[in-house]
């Protein structure tokens, strides 16, 4: 790399000239069929390939690009099985999740995206909206009804992924509200603390874990909360949501405003500041990676972790290796100071998959690719990709999938890479729910279900703003930096307000205007 980024961009941009030149013509040819052609004859015809493909038909060749969350590329074990079940010839291109966005943008700039392109998360999707509007991806909305399984995808979530009212993507579903607290129950019992029920209890627990020597070695070597440099999936947003801070956007006097303009946001920063000032959390959290955060918890140094409750399995696994007596539990449904009970929810998906026009040349080809995804939504294929091979990677207990204990490493290596690419969720693709033995994880699942009832959704999830697409991420960093500075005591309330004004003047005002205009449309 060494500062050569611009020249890399340039050289790739050059190649793009040639490639995108070809792509331009396709757009015109393809513009017509994307209308409302499907209702009459074609829907009946195209159901055939979806449901019962003739055995002797040539396998569809599909190239798939997706982020990889493990350290090495999985072997072909799962891929080969999937190919058999779906009559396809698949080429998977895995790229490390950490640098996936660059890879994505670079491939986009050079027009070299493959047939099927997974994004990384919701924010990559938002960043890509510009490219979607430019017509680089197939609009797939009109085709969904032709496929019996794809048409089962939840309408509400599909709506959340629409751009200008058109659907370009299939979603990878996730439970709406998995956020909560994971804590050391053995420590809490020792200090005679009950599971926290209010934000004040959470703060008190963090302080008690720091000051009262919960590990009983007579040294002040423990802290309460382990957090990381992530205001959203780290502790901050979840704590803020317990204090009823709106989820990204909230309504005030009939107008949508961003969350940081609400007094609850300031109150949330105050809570974090209180914990940090009391030295009850890692002091360097603004520079702490997730690996280091997890290490703080699993080494027995920190006793609380606020984030996705489903992380409890891995946290527990590594913690008991270091501290065999440790017991963890999960907790959610935490009340704010006035007894209000709220949390935040994601828009029902954590990633989407898209179909570039550069690689898929015509409608027939697109239908073949969609047919593959249609088959992915059958229980056989989705279980295979999510859980692995029955008997090897998991067993079925009480109609639920129980991940194999002894083959844990094998599953990690062979299956995990495919797990995050299964579209839909268990309700729509028929895959098994998980069977868990760890009590904390069972609690986590129950809390996740309870959380959904009290979750605040993002009212602007499906709304668009051109200014946001252009420089929203850049502007957001003003607020992110200011939030950290406030928690660290480098900014006071007035200073924070000043940063909000900077945000507004650099384009924030326009974003507010556009979001509200989109809402009343």
């Amino acid at each position, binding site marked *: 790399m060494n500062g050569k980024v*611009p020249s890399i961009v340039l050289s790739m941009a050059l190649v793009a000239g040639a490639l995108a030149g070809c792509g331009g013509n396709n757009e015109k040819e393809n513009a017509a069929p994307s209308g409302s052609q499907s209702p009459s004859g074609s829907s009946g015809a195209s159901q055939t390939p979806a449901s019962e493909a003739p055995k002797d038909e040539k396998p569809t060749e599909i190239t798939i690009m997706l982020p990889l969350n493990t350290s090495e590329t999985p072997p072909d074990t799962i891929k080969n099985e999937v190919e058999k079940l779906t009559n396809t010839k698949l080429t998977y291109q895995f790229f490390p999740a950490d640098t996936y966005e660059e890879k994505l943008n670079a491939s986009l700039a050079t027009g070299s995206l493959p047939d099927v392109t997974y994004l990384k998360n919701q924010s990559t999707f938002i960043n890509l909206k510009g490219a979607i509007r430019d017509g680089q991806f197939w609009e797939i909305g009109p085709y969904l009804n032709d496929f019996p399984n794809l048409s089962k995808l939840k309408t509400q979530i599909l709506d959340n992924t629409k751009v200008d009212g058109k659907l370009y993507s299939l979603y990878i579903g996730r439970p709406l509200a998995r956020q909560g607290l994971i804590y050391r129950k053995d420590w809490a019992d020792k200090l005679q603390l009950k599971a926290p029920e209010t934000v004040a209890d959470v703060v008190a627990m963090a302080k008690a874990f720091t000051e009262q020597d919960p590990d009983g070695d007579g040294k002040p070597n423990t802290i309460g909360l382990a957090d990381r440099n992530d205001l959203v999936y780290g502790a901050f947003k979840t704590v803020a949501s317990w204090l009823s801070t709106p989820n990204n956007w909230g309504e005030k006097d009939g107008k949508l405003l961003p969350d940081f303009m609400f007094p609850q946001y300031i109150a949330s920063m105050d809570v974090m500041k209180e914990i940090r000032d009391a030295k009850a959390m890692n002091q360097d959290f603004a520079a702490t990676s997730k690996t280091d955060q997890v290490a703080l918890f699993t080494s027995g140094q920190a006793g609380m972790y606020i984030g996705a409750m489903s992380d409890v399995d891995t946290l527990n696994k590594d913690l008991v290796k270091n501290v065999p007596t440790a017991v963890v539990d999960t907790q959610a449904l935490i009340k704010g100071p006035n007894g209000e009970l709220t949390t935040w929810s994601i828009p029902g998906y954590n990633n989407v998959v898209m179909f570039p026009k550069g690689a898929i040349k015509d409608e027939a080809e697109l239908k073949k690719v969609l047919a593959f995804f249609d088959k992915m939504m059958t229980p056989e294929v989705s279980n295979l990709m999510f859980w692995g091979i029955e008997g090897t990677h998991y067993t079925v207990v009480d109609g639920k999938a129980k991940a194999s204990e002894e083959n844990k490493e094998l599953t990690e290596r062979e299956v995990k890479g495919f797990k995050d690419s299964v579209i839909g969720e268990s309700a729509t693709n028929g895959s098994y729910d998980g069977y868990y033995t760890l009590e904390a994880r069972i609690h986590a699942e129950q809390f996740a279900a309870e959380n959904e009832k009290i979750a605040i959704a993002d009212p602007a999830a499906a709304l668009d703003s051109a200014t946001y697409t252009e420089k929203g991420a850049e502007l957001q960093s003003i607020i992110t930096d200011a939030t950290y500075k406030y928690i660290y005591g480098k900014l006071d309330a007035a200073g924070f307000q000043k940063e909000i004004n900077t945000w507004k003047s*650099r384009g924030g005002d326009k974003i507010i205007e556009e979001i509200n205009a989109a809402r009343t449309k």
Partner: protein
Amino acid sequence: MQQAIAKPEPALRSESRLSRRLIRNKWLYLMILPGLLYFIIFKYVPMYGLIISFKDYKPFDGINGSEWVGFKHFHRLFAESDFGAILRNTLVLFGMNLVFFFPIPIILSLMLNELRISFFRRIFQTLIYLPHFMSWVIIVSISYVMLTMDGGIVNELLTSLGFEKVNFLLSPEWFRPTYIIQVIWREAGWGTIIYLAAIAAIDPQLYEAARMDGAGRLRQIWHITLPAIRSVIVVLLILKIGDVLELGFEHVYLLLNSMNRDVAEIIDTYVYTAGLRQGQFSYSTAVGFFKSIVGLVLVMLANRLAKKMGEEGVY
């Protein structure tokens, strides 16, 4: 008229002379061909892409199909109120590199040169080369473990000595020292290679003569070694200035966080965030273009300065 007719003749003649020269030295020309191709393919041809900084580049429309927007992206760059800070941060880090880092390999190689026992010298050389082969990720991670406030060894040491803990990782004041110390640790040893080669080329008779005249070790260094490697130092200095803005994107990006962004955001990290993370290709190309211009100006200044001082310069 006559002139017009006469003109082609010398051109023709010089052309044939050129081709004759080409044929005569064909092997030499053939040998520079790969280098020439490298520069054309990887340095000159990509410059064509610079035009996207004057366009609203959309990948789907291609470079030629995108719309011209004139200096829009440059306007945005200079109007962004952060721009001043980013340029300042870049130049400050560059200055620190020059002042604190640049002399160290020279001093190191002078010291190495004075080592008598060659076994010890070789071991030492290898040891100081080693960090160069470690990636920044590793170096920054090691520093994190040492400097963190939650059990980092440096802060533990400070507390045991009765000092307050220092927030090395997050405070803006400590970013630059951390940066420069890491650069020295990683690169100082590697930087000695060229100086050591230059020193090895010095005629030993000069030292003998100096010793005869009663010059001590320090006098020999001052009057023989340093003047002998002076031109090497100047050339390396100019080249270093040419790299002005190559401050090690990876390194700075790894050290960058929300708390020290005010001093740690440099042009490279800004280009990366705006271009590759947020997909603003035209804008980030404009920023990168501007950076290259600053680099060019600095090299020309340094070269002129070198010539004024009686040195050869690089062109």
